[in-house]
């Protein structure tokens, strides 16, 4: 009878040990749900965004043949306080030895508006009152 009791106690002890081991080393086979990526992770860095805006502006200058100066004689600058659209000012570069013009001046030639989805949408190149017109 004593032996039966011992066996029962041992069985219960072993079962308890198995249960404890199971909880400690539970296999992680249930699906792991990652938290959704925050918007900041998806958003391009300020530098990448600026790069894309300037590239869109430069592309429009070439496509629409807006100026007769060589590429190295132009400078592009993104306005800081762009709201509904980004505004890129295009200046003459008189620093490069290949470019003509007074080295003491950096005249603005015109500006390009780039939409939030990074498409050049208009310019004030022929404007006499500063208003932008859309590209055809």
């Amino acid at each position, binding site marked *: 009878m004593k032996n039966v009791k011992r066996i029962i106690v041992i069985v219960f002890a072993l079962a308890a040990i198995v249960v404890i081991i199971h909880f400690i080393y539970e296999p992680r086979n249930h699906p792991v749900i990652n938290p959704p990526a925050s918007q900041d992770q998806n958003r391009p860095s300020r530098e990448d965004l600026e*790069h894309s805006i*300037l*590239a869109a502006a*430069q592309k429009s200058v070439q496509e*629409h*043949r*807006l*100026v*007769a*100066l060589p*590429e*190295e*004689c*132009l*400078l*592009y*600058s993104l*306005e*800081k*306080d762009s709201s509904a659209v980004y505004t890129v*000012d295009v*200046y*003459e*570069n*008189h*620093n*490069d030895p290949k*470019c*003509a*013009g*007074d*080295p*003491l*001046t*950096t*005249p*603005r*030639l015109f*500006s390009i508006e780039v939409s939030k989805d990074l498409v050049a949408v*208009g*310019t*004030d*190149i*022929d404007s*006499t*009152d*500063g*208003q932008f*017109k*859309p*590209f*055809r």
Partner: protein
Amino acid sequence: MPNSRSDVKTIQTALGKHLSDIGYVSIKLDGIFGKETLGAIRLYQARVVSLADPDGIVDPDGPTICALNGVVPKRSSPPNLDSMPVLPVNPGAKPPSQPNYVQQFLTIAVPVAKELSRKYGIPASVILAQSSLESRWGRASSSYFGEKATDPRDKSITLLTTEFEKGKQVRVVANFKAYEGYAEAAKGFCEFLKRNPRYSKAFAHSKDGLAFVREISRAGYASDPVYEKKLINLIIANKLQEYDDK
């Protein structure tokens, strides 16, 4: 090929939005390309599009339809001195309806430009045109004039610009002279032109803004071949010559 009625009606409708530009009270929207429509197109081409030879022809991608629709035409070549029209000087024409920012800019700038004009012999129209072009009528953050800061003692605004070298973006720092407000900036611009021998010929035209602009452009203030015409058109369209001493 004859004009389709719907095409003619489209042009008549577009012209109807620009009646004040051509001095018409109304225009028939009948789709018939008659004398009235031809005359209206020619007037529009002369007064607004500034075509040297207003022919009454409206090409699908031409300057007339682009002007009527208020879009920038696709150019087959970059603008040059011959291709860019100069607006006709029309002293009797009504002053243009200007956006608020233009009026605000002129309210501040005109008295300053007139005073500096008398002191330095630079036409007020030139000071006004130059600063409005450079600063987008005072809305750009860089400067009122495109004058570089070269002396380390100069107060300056640093602008991070980008140059494209074979498609690659290269950062270039541009330092503009910084001034406290329009009056100081305009004075700095006048002193810059006055002390720089490059621009000395322009001072023979101290009462003729258009001639003064031609001289400073030729002297290399800018190397864009149409910079001179841009300034001249800006002066004419905004009637800035009216602020010059006679």
